[in-house]
């Protein structure tokens, strides 16, 4: 989330991942990595079960 910038409302910190194209692209990479890990776990559990 980071620190609050001068003049910025507190609730805007929640939207920081979408505040610029750079930030939005990083969010895509993080979400893709997280869900790839989740999918790998699900497939592993199904294979074991």
């Amino acid at each position, binding site marked *: 989330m980071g620190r609050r*910038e*001068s*003049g*910025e*409302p507190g609730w*805007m910190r929640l*939207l920081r991942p*979408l*505040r*610029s*194209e*750079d930030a*939005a*692209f990083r*969010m*895509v990479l993080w*979400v*893709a990595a997280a*869900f790839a890990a*989740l*999918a790998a776990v*699900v*497939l592993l559990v199904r294979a074991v079960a």
Partner: protein
Amino acid sequence: MEAAAIPAPAAHDDHHGPPAPHYSSRVAPEVLGILLFIVSEAMLFGAFFAALFFIRVVSGDQWPPGDGLPVAVGATNAVILLSSSVTMHWTDLSARRGNVLGMRTGIVTTFLLGATFLFIQINEYLNVGFTPKTSASASIFFGLTGLHGTHVLIGLLLLAISAYRIFKGQVGPESHRGLEIPGIYWHFVDVMWIFVFTTVYVL
């Protein structure tokens, strides 16, 4: 009770028109607008995800609908959309660096990848083996993926406008906001597909 007195206008106030805009934060109005729009979009998708989980978990309707979902097709589309996010980011970087060839190549590639996604999804609809009338599960499958597909279509429209402006020479290091806003929207659409693909095809 005495009515409140209305202050008389200043005698020397020669200002005409609306007051000057007041910025209460350091966020540009265009960025704030797309952020609030995306928040409302997230809530719309949330309603569809709630319906999906209700049908799968609470109502106990058969999942997946029909004889199964083409996971490989959904995964291919995920790779295509992720690639389009990379090219979109490249386009924005090129705009900030003044790289005209990079901008043009990037926006065209992003558009083509998005169009390919839609083409594959429509082809999937035609060959999936069930219709929205088949069952509640089938309805929410078409509803959720169709909602996302509609957003891809809107994103393609925004990309087409951006491409037009890039080829007209209206986008550059000093004026790339018109490219950045569609870029944020495109990344949001990409993230939503990751959610849709995982919950509909994988889990």
